[in-house]
């Protein structure tokens, strides 16, 4: 079965990518599988300068999910380009950079540095970040601000596709999606984590030093599928779905709901060879489900 998919000029050998923040810089997973078999790799969110991230504890397990408040710890774009990217098989597998900044200018600067790199196939913009200039409201929660960030990145992205990654912590995700599409997003990816919290009655303390964090994993799959379905019907750019994917069947569910491709996040922690195995299993499961061609299967959900 032909699993290839092309979205906004990005050619993937299969629709399964790994999600930002859950696959390190790729290298961590080389003992567990061949990176070249993946549809794409989105690396850990990058900022202009290195960030130390939040204090510990940063992760907590929840029913069928987890919370994280890593705080975007990363080595900074410079070290990424110097030490991490050269290692990755970018000629064979698209490597996508995930961008994190706190104002549109910083986003633009980050975009121009990354877009200039041959090894970077596209830019994924994490708009679930606070706008420092406007009192810390998340860019991703306001259509106008989401659009501003998108424009800023798009202007400096050259011919590299710009993927805008949406937050589910909004009343109307379609409104945000349309705003970023109008602002030039080539692809929309979704969802980022839901804001959640966990507490420890014994110590009377939050389970995350940051108090609140992002909920991910199978627990959020129903929310993610709903967002993919709503957004993919409302925009004409391709959609990359994610949120709780933990099997080849889940991949098909997201494509059925309208996704062109998917990202596997938290499931990479269930076992480090998770994404590799999923890619291997996908053709078989697709065949069993009568899916012969992803193009015609995509978005073919029968609603009355």
């Amino acid at each position, binding site marked *: 079965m032909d699993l290839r998919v092309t979205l906004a000029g990005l050619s993937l050998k299969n629709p399964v990518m790994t999600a930002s*923040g859950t696959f390190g810089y790729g290298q*961590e997973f080389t003992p567990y599988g061949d990176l070249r078999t993946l549809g794409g790799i989105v690396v850990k969110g990058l900022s202009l300068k290195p960030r130390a991230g939040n204090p510990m504890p940063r992760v907590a397990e929840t029913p069928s999910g987890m919370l994280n408040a890593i705080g975007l710890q990363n080595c900074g774009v410079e070290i990424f380009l110097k030490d991490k990217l050269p290692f990755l098989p970018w000629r064979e597998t698209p490597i996508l950079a995930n961008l994190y900044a706190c104002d549109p200018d910083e986003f633009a600067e980050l975009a121009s540095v990354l877009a200039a790199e041959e090894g970077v196939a596209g830019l994924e913009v994490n708009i679930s970040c606070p706008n420092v200039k406007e009192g810390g409201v998340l860019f991703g929660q306001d259509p106008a601000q989401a659009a501003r960030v998108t424009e800023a990145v798009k202007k400096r992205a050259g011919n590299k596709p710009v993927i805008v990654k949406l937050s589910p912590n909004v009343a109307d995700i379609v409104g945000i999606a349309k705003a970023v599409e109008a602002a030039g997003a080539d692809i929309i990816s979704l969802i980022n984590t839901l804001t959640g919290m966990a507490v420890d009655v014994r110590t009377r303390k939050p389970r995350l030093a940051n108090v609140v964090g992002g909920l991910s*994993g199978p627990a959020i799959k129903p929310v993610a599928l709903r967002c993919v379905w709503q957004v993919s019907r409302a925009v004409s750019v391709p959609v990359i779905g994610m949120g709780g994917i933990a099997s080849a069947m889940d991949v098909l569910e997201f494509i059925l709901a309208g996704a062109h491709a998917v990202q596997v996040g938290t499931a990479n922690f269930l076992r480090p060879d998770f994404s590799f195995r999923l890619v291997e299993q996908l053709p078989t499961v697709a065949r069993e489900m009568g899916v012969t061609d992803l193009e015609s299967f995509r978005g073919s959900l029968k609603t009355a």
Partner: protein
Amino acid sequence: MPIPYNRCKDVTVLSLTPHGPEGRENGLWLLELENPGLAKARPGQFAMLRPASWGFDPLWARPLSICRALPDRLVFNFLVAGRGTSALTRLTPGDKVTLWGPLGHGFAVEPGVRTLMLAGGIGIAPFVEYAAVHPTPGQLSLLFGHRPPLSCYPYEDLAQTVGAESFQDRSAEDIPRFVELLEKRMAEHAGALALACGPTPFLRSVKAAAEKYGVRCQISLENRMACGVGACLGCVAETPDGERVQTCTRGPVFWSNEITL
């Protein structure tokens, strides 16, 4: 030539038994798994274990120190600490467990150097392998602090190989006495090597004593881990200059002056 991507395996449970006659009530268990080829595990390294039956809840694998890596099996000793480890006690022979490892850096092995092993509770686990593979076991001694009876731990095996000393703390008042003993043994190892594994408060005392008496000291951290491979950044320890480093890949064993506790 194909590269063998064989570090994550589904292995079979060979046995699971409470450790010693009082192991069950104290939540101390001995787990033996098929060895998927980790012969070269170094003492202090660990593996991530995830029973196939877990579904999505518990979500993460659990890290356990490799207590023995034998050709025909891997031996783990664990303490029931919460949901995950209590779910481990429901394994039965024949069940499948997803395992990846050996992970992280083990303890320094310095042949001919006097080495003091400091274990708190289930922190004794890595020292079983350490003593078993050390080239000059005559140089090793062990100070073991514990609460449940000694029979709940792989202590006897160790005591047969190395100079071992145990201290049972029965109440909060015993702890200062244990710390005193710890300091005494540290003082005797000035300039030599100390290795510690156990709960964080215990490691803090060890670190302080090592600094006080000029002992080169390694400590093994038991931070919460989601992935075990350096990807999630959930397990970080802090270095004195504020850098945050993954315990799973840069540790779990650190020189005591490399990190703050």
